[in-house]
């Protein structure tokens, strides 16, 4: 499968480890993610205001790029695109849905973007995780050369991947897609009752304390259930859960650091694609000591 890939800004800056590992893991599964030759920021937050069309222009412009790629044959999928960041995924899928269901909005945005070809309203925004699920997790197990035996992972989902229901890729009440993936990689799954609690998102900028509290809850609950590491698919969740451990430690003296993996890093590790493809050095809490203790490195 050759599919247009939308990276988003974070994956080119703070979350290179998500991009590098996901591209390598996807390739191993026969998914060729072709970066869109031109793309712009998705807008980051989907505007819920009914008359605020301006903030959907950015997403729709990206969808036009996907449409072009489908038409010019640079990919072999039709009107499909893949994202890795949960936030980009949510914003663009929501915008795609809005213009698909509101003909008037689509006309208005198309007439505003008069230097672009008209958007046809048909692009399907996918997250890599759902593409993998739809392929079948047995395909994943078949590629595992280094099962993550003995590693206790507490999958974390947050908000953007699973909510709202019409946008999410899994049951918003009881998501399992991460657990199924890591099981296929040979890991042990620990269920965290806080797996779908918000990490605090952008409050991390102006309201750090809220984020410290939330992240502390999410991490310590995972630990209480026996989790040794947590997983995510979102650079913002990763920042709040991983980098903010610095502040958590200052506030909660008993808190013990815990590695936060991108789902894709666990895939490249289990597929035996080498440390360059895992980019563990970019994680804030270094996961390598834990992996060494499990004989996985």
């Amino acid at each position, binding site marked *: 499968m050759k599919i247009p890939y939308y990276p988003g800004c974070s994956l*080119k800056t*703070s979350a290179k480890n998500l991009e590098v590992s996901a591209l390598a893991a996807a390739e191993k599964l026969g998914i060729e993610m072709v970066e869109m030759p031109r*793309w*712009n920021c998705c807008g980051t937050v989907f505007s819920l205001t009914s008359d605020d069309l301006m903030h959907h222009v950015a997403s729709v412009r990206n969808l036009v790029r996907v449409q072009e790629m489908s038409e010019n044959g640079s990919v072999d999928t039709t009107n499909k695109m893949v994202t890795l960041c949960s936030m980009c995924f949510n914003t663009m899928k929501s915008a795609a849905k809005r213009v698909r269901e509101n003909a008037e909005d689509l006309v208005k945005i198309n007439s505003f*973007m008069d*230097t672009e070809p008209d958007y046809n309203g048909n692009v399907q925004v996918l997250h890599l995780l759902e593409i993998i699920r739809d392929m079948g997790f047995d395909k994943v197990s078949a590629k595992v050369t280094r099962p993550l035996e003995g590693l206790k992972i507490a999958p974390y989902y947050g908000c953007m991947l699973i909510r709202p229901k019409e946008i999410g890729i899994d049951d918003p009440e009881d998501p399992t897609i991460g657990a199924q993936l890591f099981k296929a990689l040979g890991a042990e799954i620990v269920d965290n009752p806080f797996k779908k609690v918000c990490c605090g998102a952008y409050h991390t900028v102006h309201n750090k304390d809220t984020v410290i509290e939330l992240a502390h809850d999410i991490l310590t609950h995972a630990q209480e259930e026996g989790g040794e590491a947590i997983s995510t698919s979102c650079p913002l969740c990763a920042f709040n859960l991983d980098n903010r451990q610095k502040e958590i430690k200052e506030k909660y003296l008993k808190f013990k650091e815990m590695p936060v993996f991108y789902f894709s890093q666990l895939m490249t590790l289990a597929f035996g694609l080498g440390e360059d493809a895992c980019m563990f050095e970019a994680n804030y809490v270094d996961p390598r000591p834990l992996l060494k203790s499990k004989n996985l490195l």
Partner: protein
Amino acid sequence: MEDKKDIMQIIADANKSVTTGIDSADIEHWVWIHIMGRAYQVPAGLTIMQAMEYAGYKFITSAGCRAGFCGACATMYRKEGEYKLQTAMACQTRVEDGMFLVQIPFAPAQEATYDITKEPYAASTLLEHYPEIARCVACNTCTKACPQDLEVMDYIQDALRGDYKKVAERSFDCIQCGLCAVRCPAEITQFNVGMLARRMYGRYGMTEPEYAKARLTELDQGKYDKEFKKLLAADVEELKKRYAAREREAD
């Protein structure tokens, strides 16, 4: 004294409107334009700048090189019957019948202060100095406004993701006219972002070319000292002669 007068005359001549001294009886083709709401009939084929001078306006600002390089002569116009607001450089664009024109001599902008030697070559630097780039809604208005046909939106997007090389390449021909900035709904001053990115890329991103290093060594070793001394000692006549006979690239 005599020389000085010559120079002042040369400057005065250079700044004279090209239409000075033309007899309007000799002009066959005319167009109607509006300058800041007033109608004028001007000879066809003039640039906007020349047409305004023909109409009696004197450029005490908003003009510099008269050759499309300095970015001083930004113009906005609409054409009769069209809703599009268009942008151009007045010295580079010919008047057309039914143009409604105004000059934009200045674009108010905040330029960040920084010590380039102390700025980290990181994605966050551009955002730190110009946090408003995160407000870009990808409307593409800036690209449509740019008289240099630059992909302005794309270089702001490159800036957002810290891709200095791309910003530098895409904004290289920016003449700082400010038209993108006055049109941007997110109030971004694109040209300043581009300039910081080019400075950063020039200092930290580019490798020093070998030929430049070799040339500098030659200069340090005094390869041209003798020639320079000769030039400095030459009198005005000799310099004029040599200037006229200089080797130059074809125009």
